[in-house]
Structure formats: C-alpha cells, structure tokens
C-alpha cells in the first residue's frame, strides 16, 4: 500500500484531537479515567501508524527528494510569505519515527504510572499537546513553522514540569525552565532575522540552496547566524551556559522526564543543527564552538552526575552530558553521528527514565503503605531492588550497558562514531583533539555514574526500611511492556548504523546522504580507518567496561547509609554534590542584580516615579490645572458674562460681515 506524504498532517491532527478530547474531559469529566486511558495512547499509536506507513512508502519508493506539504498560507506580508507547510524528508521521517514511537511507549507507561493521580486527564491532554508541537517542530518546512513547535514544546514542558503545581518548588522549576529558554529563543529569533535579511527566505530548502551562493563560507554573516542559532540550541537542548533548567525539570512526573526531557524535546537543538547543517558547515568557527560547548558540557555534567543521590537527578545530568555528545558530533560535521546518537539516546534514556519511574512507583507504594515520609527518589533509601523488581532491573541493566557504550548495545556505536569523528577532525583543527579527550573522559565517567546508580538502586541490602520492604513490588504489565520494547531497541538500536568494520552497511549514513551531501562538500570529514579505528574502538570498550567495574567497586566498597543517617559531604564531593554552585553563581551574578535593578530602578524609579507620578498623576494634575483656569472665567457676575457675550457677538458679526 502506497501512502502519500500528503497525509502527514494526519500524524499531527490525531494527537491534536487527543488533546481536545482529553482537555474537554479534564474540564468536565476528570473522573472518566477509562476514556482517557484509551484516547491518550491511542492517538499516539495512530500517529505512529501514519508515520510508519508513510516511511515505508517513502523508503520503498527510494525517494531522496524532500516533499513539501503546504496546508495554508500563514503570513502573507509584502515580500515575506510564510506557508504553514510540512517538510517530509529523510531526516524528518527518522525524527518522526522516534517521536511517535518512543512517545507511544511512554504514553502507555503513563497509563500505569499516573492512573491514581487526580489530574490524570489533564496530564494526558498536556502530553498529547506536547506531541502535536513536537511533530510541528520536526515537520516545519521553514524556521518560523519550526519555531511554532519550538515554543509549543516549551509551553508543554512548562505545564508538565509544574504539573503538581500545588508544591511551590515544582511551579518554580517550571518557571525557571520557561525563563531560561526565553534567553535561547532570543538567539533563535535574531538568527531568523539575519537569515531573512541576507537570504530573503526562511524556508529550509531555499536556505540550503541559497546559502552557498549568497553567503561567503567562513564569513562573518554565516558565523553570526549560526552562533545565534546555537544560542537557541543551548537553551532548548540544555547546554552550557543554559543547561541549569533541565535538572530542575525533574520536578515533573517521571514519564514526562522520559519523553520531553530526555528523548524528544531536548534533542530539538541537535535536530535544528542537523536541519541547517549547510549553514554550520559553512562556518567552521561556529562548528568548533558547537563541538567545544558540547564536549565541555558532556564532561561537566558527567562530573556532577557522579555525586547526585536523587535517581532522576543522576539521569538528568546524564541527559545533559549525552546531549553534549550530540553537539560534539554535529559540531564536528558528523551530522549523521549526531542524529544516530540522538536516536539511540532516545531509546536507552527513555528506558532509564521509565525504569527509574518504575522504581519510584514501587518506592511510593511502599512508603504510602507505612505512611513514611522518606525521599522516594533518593538512591540511598533504595538498594537490593533487583530481587523484587527483576524485570525493571534487567531492562535498566541493558540501558546501562547501552549508555556506557558496551558493544553490541546501541550507545556503543553512536558514541564511538562521535568520538572517532572528533578525533579525525583533530588532524585539521587541533582543538578537536581536546574535545575528543573531554569526550573520552566523559565516557569513562558515564560508565562510572551509571554503575553507581545501578549498584545503589538494585544491589546490596535494602535500605527502604523493614516495614516498607514488604510492600515493594514489580510494576504492572502496562508499565513493564513498554520497557521491554525499549530494552530491545536499546540492545539492537546500533544496527541502524552498523559500520562496515562490524559487517554492517551504515544504513542511517546512506539514508541521510541527501540531507548532509551539501555540508560534506563544504566541510569534508575523513573518518579514521584501519589501525586508528581499531585503537579508538579498543579504547572505548576498555573505558566503558573499566568505568562500569570501577563504579560498582567504589560504590559497594563501603556500606551505604540511608539518606537520613548519611554523613555530610566533604571536599570536592561537596562541590559536585552542590553542582559546582552554578545556580548560586547565576543567582549572585545575574538573578539578584536583575531583581535589585527591577526593584530599585524599574519599580521605584521608572514605574512609581515616571509612569505613576509623571503619567498617571501628572495627567490628572494637568486636567485639574486646566479646569482651575476655566473656573477663573466663571465669576458669577452677570455683567461679565454679558460683556463676554457682547464681545463674542460683535466678533462674529465682524467676521461674517467681512
């Protein structure tokens, strides 16, 4: 059956219908949980089916040409005419499959995880709406349409981080995410303005065509454009210096962290760079900045993850770190490696988050049964869970091997490709050797903190408490089934782009050839072969396995105490535990001066002084003064009135008579 790409709008319309239905239920029938459980995941599975059919037809016809589906003209203003059109090509199809596929699994998981929440319908309404915007983001055929999705997912992220808004900390985390992202969006918009001013078009296909003709490669214009675009990416994809919102975003429900803050939304920045790869390829300086920031973020976030106790915080910093790898890849010019890591990361990180959700679910139930108020997410209160949660344990173990980069699991291939590309680029730009080294160290740390997470959660003795232990249990099938699917994907996801060395044919690489062709022409990258390739792979395996073993050994070397009895952190561990005090530094350098400025100058001087006293009270005073002058004419003396009257009549008389 051939399904035309013109039907892609259905993939967006289905979740939108889901949002409307669930939204209506949330308002009028919050108790109708069965209807929500059916509608919420069903629309996603429907969207996945549509995407899969279109993908099959597109791949079956061996189409390399992008197909633009124009829905309507959105902004017709003079020379600027923006259509609301969707771009179906090889890159967007890959992303669509990930978003709807992983999204469907997470929706199913949510049915089990959120079932007992009073805001169940509202939750699914937001989650459906998120998918709508994510699909618009991926499908947008021009920067402004992508921007609709870009802002929309930001809105849904805000709504879902602050889902339990009754707790002020959650609402604050949502606000923080929203505000930090605004800084990035500023960069995105400036980039759009410059592109419009220089190229006269915002359409991706036209940009790819016009940019090499009208812009000088390596010139100031293209460098400025890409740097501003990348500022947008650092906001959305949580890179230094704007990564601070993502760890706080863990305040939302865990499936939200899996879908939005690990698998899909936060990879939007990587997608944007891959989408506009020709611009980044033409600006080697910007590409170096992208790779540098990515490598630094990968290392920086990995060190913080070493000393976090909240299971979700570890995974959050791990996400920031892995996003750094993706930027390292796209900055190096290995766009396919970046997208490849994006896809495999979506599999194993979604699995890790959902696994963590499953653990937290069990902890909550156990503590609920005994009315305990210990922290359900603190790994120091867990331990030994592999005995009660064998499925979750086995699947999270697969994800751990995948993220650590142990062959043949998914993460190994994508991470290895990224590091190999960075190493190769180092021959031409020496800075990339440093970035490569950062990446290698971060890989070792990744293996270490993941082993620590697994050891603290699943090994050793249980520290939940004697009474609580009895209530710990495995999650229901609706939650474990999606985990199994993600587990399989995490295990075999590497096959997507198996390099020739392992007998593969680099499918993804060839699939995305039409997308990256132009960029490879401008910014060629010669991947290492032969001996160098073997050495790099050997190093990667040694680091991954070594890191895992060391992480387990170090964590289990000393008995772990429950959070309540734990000794305070000392030395450098304390700095890591407090995340290098970055939040505090930002507060002191930016937030507090801004608040002070707003308070002293903007509020007391500008608002109260200028606007209130000058504008509001000033206009009142002006009216009163004019009125007072008017009252002076009203003497009450009839004679005066008559005199004025007579003078007026005579005046009119003379004017009329000329």
């Amino acid at each position, binding site marked *: 059956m051939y399904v035309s790409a013109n039907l892609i709008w259905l993939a967006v319309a289905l979740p939108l219908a889901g949002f409307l239905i669930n939204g209506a239920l949330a308002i009028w029938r919050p108790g109708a949980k069965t209807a929500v459980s059916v509608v919420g995941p069903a629309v996603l599975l429907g969207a996945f089916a549509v995407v899969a059919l279109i993908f099959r037809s597109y791949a079956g016809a061996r189409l390399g040409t992008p197909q633009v589906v124009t829905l309507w003209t959105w902004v017709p203003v003079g020379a600027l005419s923006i259509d609301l059109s969707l771009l179906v090509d090889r890159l967007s199809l890959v992303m669509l499959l990930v978003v709807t596929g992983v999204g469907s699994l997470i929706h199913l998981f949510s049915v089990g995880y959120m079932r007992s929440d009073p805001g169940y319908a509202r939750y699914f309404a937001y989650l459906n709406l998120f998918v709508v915007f994510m699909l618009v983001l991926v499908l947008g055929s021009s920067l402004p349409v992508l921007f609709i999705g870009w802002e929309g997912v930001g809105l849904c992220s805000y709504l879902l981080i602050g889902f339990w808004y009754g707790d002020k900390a959650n609402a604050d985390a949502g606000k923080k995410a929203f505000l930090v992202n605004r800084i990035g969006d500023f960069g995105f918009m400036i980039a759009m303005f410059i592109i419009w001013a220089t190229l006269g078009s915002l359409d991706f296909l036209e940009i790819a065509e016009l940019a090499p003709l009208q812009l000088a490669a390596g010139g100031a214009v293209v460098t400025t454009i890409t740097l501003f675009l990348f500022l947008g990416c650092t906001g959305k994809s949580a890179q230094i210096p704007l990564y601070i919102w993502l760890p706080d975003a863990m305040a939302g429900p865990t499936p939200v962290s899996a879908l939005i803050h690990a698998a899909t939304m936060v990879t939007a920045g990587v997608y944007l760079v891959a989408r506009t790869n020709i611009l980044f390829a033409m600006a080697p300086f910007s590409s170096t900045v992208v790779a540098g920031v990515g490598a630094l973020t990968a290392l920086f976030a990995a060190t913080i993850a070493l000393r976090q106790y909240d299971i979700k915080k570890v995974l959050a910093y791990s996400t920031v770190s892995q996003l750094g790898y993706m930027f390292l890849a796209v900055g190096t010019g290995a766009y396919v490696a970046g997208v490849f890591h994006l896809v495999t990361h979506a599999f194993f990180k979604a699995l890790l988050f959902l696994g963590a959700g499953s653990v937290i679910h069990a902890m909550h139930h156990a503590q609920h049964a005994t009315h305990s108020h210990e922290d359900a997410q603190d790994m120091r209160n867990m331990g030994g869970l592999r005995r009660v949660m064998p499925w979750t344990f086995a699947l999270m173990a697969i994800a751990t091997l995948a993220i650590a980069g142990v062959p043949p699991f998914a993460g190994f291939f994508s991470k290895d490709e990224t590091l190999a590309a960075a190493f190769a680029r180092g021959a031409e730009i020496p800075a990339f050797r440093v970035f490569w080294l950062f990446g290698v160290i971060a890989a070792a740390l990744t293996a270490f903190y993941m082993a620590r997470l697994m050891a603290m959660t699943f090994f050793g003795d249980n520290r939940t408490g004697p009474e609580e232990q009895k209530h710990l249990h495995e999650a229901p099938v609706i939650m474990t089934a999606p985990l199994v699917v993600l587990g399989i994907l995490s295990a075999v996801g590497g096959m997507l782009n198996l390099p020739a060395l392992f007998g593969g044919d680099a499918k993804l690489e060839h699939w995305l050839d039409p997308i990256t062709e132009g960029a490879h022409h401008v910014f060629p990258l010669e991947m290492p072969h032969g001996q160098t390739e073997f050495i790099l792979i050997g190093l990667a395996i040694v680091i991954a396995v070594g890191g895992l073993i060391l992480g387990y050994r170090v964590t289990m070397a000393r008995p772990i105490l429950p959070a309540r009895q734990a000794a305070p952190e000392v030395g450098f561990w304390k700095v890591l535990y407090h995340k290098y005090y970055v939040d505090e530094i930002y507060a002191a350098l930016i937030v507090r001066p801004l608040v002070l400025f707003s308070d002293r100058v903007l509020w007391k001087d500008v608002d109260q002084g200028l606007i209130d006293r000058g504008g509001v009270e000033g206009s009142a005073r002006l009216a009163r003064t004019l009125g007072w002058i*008017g*009252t*002076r*004419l*009203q*003497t*009450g*003396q*009839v*004679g005066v009135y*008559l*005199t004025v009257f*007579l003078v007026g009549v005579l005046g009119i008389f003379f004017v009329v008579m000329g």
Partner: protein
Amino acid sequence: MLLGPALAFSALLFSIGVLGVLIRRNAIVLFMCIELMLNAVNLTFIALAQYHGVGGQLMVFFVMAVAAAEAAVGLAIILAVFRHTTSVDLKTNTLLQG
C-alpha cells in the same frame, strides 16, 4: 416717513439698551434695557417694512409675543431670586461663581 431718522433713533435706543445691560446692577433695570433693545429692533423692522413689504410688520408681532413671554419668565425668576436673597442686585448674586 423718513427712513434715516427712524433708523438713527432705533440705533440710539439699541445702544442705550446695550449700555444699560452692561453697566446697571439692578436686575429689573437690566431687564428693561433688554426690552429697549427688542423695541429698537422692532422700530427698524417697521421702518424698513415700507420698502420691503409686510414681512417686517409681521415680524414685529412675533417679537412682541416673544418679549411678553420672556418678560413673564424673567420677572418670575427675578421675583424668586428676590425672595431667596432679598436683593435684586446682580453684584451680590454670584451663586454661579466657579
């Protein structure tokens, strides 16, 4: 009848009326001055009616009717003011002062 002296006389009467309105303080005198002006205009109408047809004479009747009505209302107001303030001096009646 001579037109020139008639118009001159009516202009004189009108001017006296205006002057009276402007300088007198007694409300009743002021009122009489207004009547003087009305009648000066009436005189002009009559004088010119000789040359321009009967319309001027007709207009005089209108003016007299309106003046009568105005006198009735005006005197009633003055009476009411007098009862209220025991004075018809316009200098002391300044209730409309701003």
